[in-house]
């Protein structure tokens, strides 16, 4: 995927095309999967919380397109998209939220605790902050082991005011660790605006505070995200240290399914961002530039929907974990 994506960053013509189409497919997969999870929640199939990333798909897709299977990702409570983009299957993701033993965490985690080390998803966390530190630590390993692998942290604007952000970025910078810090700035932490939580609205620029490159990109423009991620990952792979990428984006669902969503965001703001839906935006470009025809994309959508439908059936039909087995793995070798 790596070269495709790099090219995609360069634009839609020629070599760029397949990359852009791949990015489109990844975003579509995340969107359809999340929509299915939203329906599943309404149906009562999800016993716990469900944090959807609808509207933010471009960040997961654009960043992970530049990662190799052996690169590692650490994420946060809103990690469905990152998991899917890194290679967790929709079936494993849905089964996890349904609490089934076939889930990527064997039903132990749910929405906020996705583990799939086999594909480099080292974990998502229900606590805001740790992913920043753990990604830095993975970077420490990858460097000490003399690999050219890369570690990525996905986190929200809400983590920026947390000490973990400060301590993690500082250590990554002074030790030149191969880490890409991706801040998904969707303007709110639950209902608290970032404009309230920080007097300084600029996240990307904070890279410089720690002595690392920092950029801010349109998080709804998957090509811009991919371009920035490609440069950051390349820098990390070649031993040039960490990068901070701020992706300005927007959450189109409530903070979590079943939560009230009124009062803290204006309709105008919501509409403005809906008009900038990352999937629709890329679709228009693909068609306008003649990279893909409407019917091709329709076909892809049908394909993805079918796959999601199958995944849903798989998850719904999967067995519950064995209660007795719930005592295992507290320690290694158990």
């Amino acid at each position, binding site marked *: 995927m790596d070269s495709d994506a790099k090219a995609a960053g360069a634009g839609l013509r020629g070599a760029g095309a397949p990359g852009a189409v791949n990015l489109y497919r990844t975003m579509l997969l995340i969107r359809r999967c999340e929509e299915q999870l939203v329906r599943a929640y309404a149906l009562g199939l999800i016993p716990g919380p469900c944090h959807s990333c609808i509207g933010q798909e471009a960040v997961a897709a654009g960043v992970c397109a530049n990662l190799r299977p052996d690169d590692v990702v650490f994420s946060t409570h809103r990690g469905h998209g990152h998991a899917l983009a890194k290679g967790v299957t929709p079936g494993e993701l849905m089964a996890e939220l349904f609490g*089934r033993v076939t889930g990527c965490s064997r039903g*132990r*985690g*749910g929405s906020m605790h996705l583990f799939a080390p086999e594909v480099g998803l080292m974990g998502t966390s229900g606590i805001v*902050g740790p992913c920043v530190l753990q990604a830095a630590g993975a970077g420490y390993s990858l460097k000490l082991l003399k690999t050219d692998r890369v570690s990525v942290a996905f986190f929200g604007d809400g983590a920026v005011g947390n000490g973990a952000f400060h301590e993690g970025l500082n250590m990554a910078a002074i030790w030149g660790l191969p880490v890409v810090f991706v801040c998904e700035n969707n303007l709110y*932490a639950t209902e608290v605006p970032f404009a309230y939580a920080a007097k300084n609205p600029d996240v990307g620029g904070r890279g410089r505070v720690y002595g690392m490159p920092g950029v801010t990109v349109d998080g709804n423009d998957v090509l811009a995200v991919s371009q920035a991620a490609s440069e950051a990952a390349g820098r990390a792979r070649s031993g040039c240290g960490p990068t901070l990428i701020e992706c300005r984006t927007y959450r189109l669902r409530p903070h979590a399914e079943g939560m009230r969503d009124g009062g*803290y965001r204006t309709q105008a703001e919501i509409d403005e961002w809906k008009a900038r839906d990352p999937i629709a935006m890329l679709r228009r470009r693909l068609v306008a530039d003649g990279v893909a025809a409407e019917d091709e994309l329709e076909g892809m959508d049908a394909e993805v929907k079918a796959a999601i439908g199958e995944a849903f059936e798989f998850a719904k039909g999967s067995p519950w974990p064995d209660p007795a087995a719930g*005592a295992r793995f507290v320690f290694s070798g158990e």
Partner: protein
Amino acid sequence: MRELTYTDAAREALAEAMRRDPTIFVVGEGIGKRGGNFNTTAGLYDLYGPERLRDTPICERGFIGLCAGAAMTGTRPVVDFMFADFILDAFGEVVNQIAKIQYMSSGRITMPIVLRGCIGAGSSAATHHSGSYYPVYAHFPGLRVAVPATPADAKGLLATALRGDDPVLFLEHKNLLATKGPVPEGEHCVPFGKARIAQEGKDLTVVAIALMVQKTLKACEDLEREGIAAEVIDPRTVAPLDMETILASLRKTGRLLVVDETFGPCGIGAEIAARVMEEAFNELDAPVRRLNGRHAPIPYSPPLESAAVPQVADIARAIRDLVAE
């Protein structure tokens, strides 16, 4: 008496205290206009505004450390941390600063701070939103730890916390928030260190904590039909711990079971067992028994989660076994 939910009862205590005392302010994520993730502050923002209902960034260590400094200088912060799991990031501020500064200053500085939020498993919130931690806070000197099990105690213990000058952990079990019960009107203070006898009985004594009180009472319904009359004690605060009431009951029943959903090792049950042995060894007709949650993180999936904490049937079994010893 009029009935209120646990949450409404606690909010009533907070509202009454804030009306009475302008130095009380609340900090937390979404406790301003939003009224709190658990409606802990609903309606108060409109009355007292942003300075006294202060939304925070996500920096638990920071705002708890900040509130320590505030408590040292004439105000009375209430930290509303939503889930007790979140303030582990502030553990150093709680244990090394908040719990110690009264002592280190020889009482010349007081630390009137209330740290409140939810504990407990039972809602598939998974391992970062299901912990209880009260045994850990009870281990350290300088902290009061309240674990109300009823709406009346939620109001009464919070009212006491808001009147005192000591740091208080006020821990509300998620699965109790919606429960209803009679709650006294007006100011109602429940003293710390005074247990409540939730049910009288002669065959054995069961000390249960937070949600386990309700589950134990439920278990006792069936057991009564079997002719087993358990005395159920709700300590209400685990620090201080009302051993007098527990020992008095034990002297009557000769048997003691501690039902506590959180981890057993170095837990409240261990402390109670040790104290009972030290102070009433010869009154014991059987060893003190403990029923705790499984010694593993709380998993997400319902079948896994319900196996991880004591259920009504487990409690009933433990009671039968102990009576049979």
